[in-house]
């Protein structure tokens, strides 16, 4: 055994071979990292590409409310695509919208598929949260079930109407006014949305608006020939002789407009409505109920002012509504005999009575008049000052009637208001008399019979005071009389105020004259101020 040469720092034995330096070839393990990274990156790219649906192009005439990268394309409330770019068409005829659809939306993209922009509104499904209010416009797609696959579409400017062969009911509503109804406004029946407004345009023949509505097939049997449609939009605030009426329908109708319909009892036996039928759109629910098949006109002649009377004001008997004021006009007569001819429609159905076959309307009215029925204008609403026609039993009062042949007439009597009005008009005359009296006194003061006059002054002032207190009492009793007619009271109160003011001035004059009779000549002395 040979001994090992000593190792250590002393020296390296000469026969120890020199190690061969091996240069590491090849790649170290670290290259796995970039390979993995590249692999993941590539996979992500490929997956994203796979997940991408087709890109489509839609042309619209305007890009209002469309945002590149934000506006969604929806189908039945599901997001199926996103608008990527919005650019002007090369010939400036419109805008070109490029959108990326979701994966798997090929079935929606046939040549006949329709796209339109749904601009911000409260959805038909209801107000679904603040988010939808702010979410902005979106593009809705209505696909056709078959057809050649397409990637370019011409967008519609308005949502399409339901196709003509759709199973539901398409009806026309004639309205005086569109109100707040818009395309897409709901059609409700007993509060449930059963259809929608599709389109509207000005009526061809008449003055008014023609509205096309569509009723869903499952609710179509609910519409009958006798059904009535009314505008249920917004808030109904009506000022009338009956005071203020306030009614609002559903929240959607409040904000987006809406139409409601129901079938009144007398219409339940009418046949089912057919597509294409035309209905009248009443202004509100009340109007829809107040359709009476029977009504006959009655004329009334009023001598006083009809200020506050409006067409549509009620005709009442003991507070029950009998009819409606249809029109009124000044009669062709000399000015000092001014008469207003008011025509009312009496609607017996209101009180559940129909004219029997045994007597005509004229006969019935004559019977009532003979019994003492008279017509009178009364103050209906404190707030609005509206008048209504009150039928009262008042045979004693002198009545106005013209007796024009060929018309049914109700004699009229003066209203309580009229009496007060004439009374109120008397007051200024009283004022003038007083003023003249005082003027006369002043003249007296500068005559030579001064001393006599001064002596008589005291007596005059006493008399004046008495007269004043008398007038005061008169007005007080008028006030009491008017206790229930507060509006009139306001007018009388105004007159009273003026009177009282004048009275005060006169009273002060009387007081002063009492103390300083010589003031008539010398004028007020400084110590004698009030």
């Amino acid at each position, binding site marked *: 055994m040979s001994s090992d040469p000593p190792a250590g720092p002393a020296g390296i034995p000469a026969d120890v071979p020199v190690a061969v330096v091996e240069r590491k070839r090849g790649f170290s393990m*670290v290259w796995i990292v*970039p390979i993995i990274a590249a692999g993941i990156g590539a996979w*992500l790219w490929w997956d994203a590409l796979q997940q991408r649906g087709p890109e489509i192009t839609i042309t619209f005439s305007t890009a209002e409310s469309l945002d590149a990268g934000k506006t969604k394309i929806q189908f039945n409330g599901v997001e199926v695509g996103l608008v990527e770019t919005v650019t002007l068409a090369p010939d400036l005829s419109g805008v070109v919208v490029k959108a990326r659809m979701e994966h798997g939306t090929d079935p929606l993209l046939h040549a006949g598929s329709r796209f339109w922009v749904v601009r911000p509104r409260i959805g038909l499904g209801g107000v679904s949260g603040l988010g939808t209010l702010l979410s902005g416009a979106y593009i809705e797609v209505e696909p056709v079930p078959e057809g050649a696959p397409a990637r370019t579409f011409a967008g519609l400017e308005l949502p399409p109407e339901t196709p003509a062969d759709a199973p539901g009911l398409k009806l026309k509503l004639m309205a005086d006014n569109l109100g707040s109804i818009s395309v897409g406004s709901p059609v409700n029946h007993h509060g449930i949305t059963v259809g929608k407004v599709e389109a509207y345009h000005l009526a061809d023949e008449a003055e008014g608006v023609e509205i096309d509505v569509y009723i869903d097939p499952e609710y179509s049997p609910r519409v009958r020939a006798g059904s009535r449609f009314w505008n249920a939009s917004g808030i109904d605030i009506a000022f009338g002789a009956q005071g203020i009426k306030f009614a609002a329908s559903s929240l959607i109708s409040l904000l987006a407009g809406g139409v409601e319909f129901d079938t009144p009892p007398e219409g339940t036996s009418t046949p089912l409505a057919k597509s294409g039928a035309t209905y009248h759109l009443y202004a509100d629910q009340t109007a829809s109920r107040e359709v009476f098949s029977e009504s006959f006109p009655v004329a009334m002649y009023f001598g006083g002012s009809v200020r506050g009377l409006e067409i549509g004001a009620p005709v009442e008997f003991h507070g029950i509504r009998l009819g409606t004021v249809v029109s009124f006009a000044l009669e062709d007569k000399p000015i000092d005999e001014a008469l207003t001819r008011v025509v009312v429609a009496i609607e017996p159905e209101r009180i559940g009575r129909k004219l029997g076959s045994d007597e005509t309307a004229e006969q019935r009215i004559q019977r009532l008049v003979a019994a003492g029925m008279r017509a009178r204008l009364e103050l209906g609403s404190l707030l609005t000052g509206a008048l209504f026609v009150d039928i009262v039993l008042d045979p004693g009062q002198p009545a106005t009637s013209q007796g024009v042949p060929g018309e049914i007439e109700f004699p009229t009597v003066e209203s309580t208001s009229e009496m007060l009005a004439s009374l109120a008009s008397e007051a200024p005359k009283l004022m003038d008399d007083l003023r003249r009296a005082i003027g006369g006194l002043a003249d007296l003061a500068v005559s030579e019979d001064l001393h006599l006059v001064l002596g008589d002054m005291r007596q005059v002032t006493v008399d004046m005071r008495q007269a004043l207190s008398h007038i005061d009492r008169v007005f007080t009793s008028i006030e009491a009389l008017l206790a229930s007619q507060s509006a009139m009271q306001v007018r009388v109160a105004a007159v009273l105020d003026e009177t009282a003011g004048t009275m005060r001035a006169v009273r002060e004059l009387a007081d002063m004259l009492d103390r300083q009779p010589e003031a008539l000549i010398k004028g007020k002395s400084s110590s004698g101020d009030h």
Partner: protein
Amino acid sequence: MSASAGLIACHDCDLLHRRVPLPPRGTARCTRCGSRLYRDLRGGTERALALSLAAIVLLVVANSFPFLTFKMGGLVEQNHLASGVVELFDQGYWELACLVCFAIVIAPALRLGLLVFVTASLRFGWRPPGLGPALKLAGRLQEWAMLDVFLLGSLVAIIKLSDLAHVALGTSMYAFGALIVLLAAANSAFDSHEAWHALEQPPC
């Protein structure tokens, strides 16, 4: 002017030291102030190259996919890594936009590109022109590539926003996290002094 081989001066205190071979993965430090003089990086160049390439892939991924998604009340806002730059610019703060753009887009991308260039050249023995300036620029950019700070900033932003509404992390965010890790690894695998030293040697 002759170069003194085998000597190195401390960067922070200027003290002269003798270069000695290091054990594997060893670090030479200044005897006076403790500053790092040079490191031993076995195969560091190759690692740096591989990691830089991976980082570039991840950088592209991180910029292509959505970064964060913010959902509040039905409104959705998605953004990319560099969306902030665009938005700051839109708001009129072009100075901030430029700074942020430089710090999170230009500097990192440029530095990675240069690193790949340099490490590949070193690894495969090329000596293209511009290698030196490339190495210099890469070194200067290291301070200004602030993707790691950006990551932390985005985490703080997420925390602040998650109070208000739902914040979802996008694909980009995960790629970004991995990117930061790779960047750190690549930086530690690369020692510029060694690179300069290697540059001096003839290619083999």
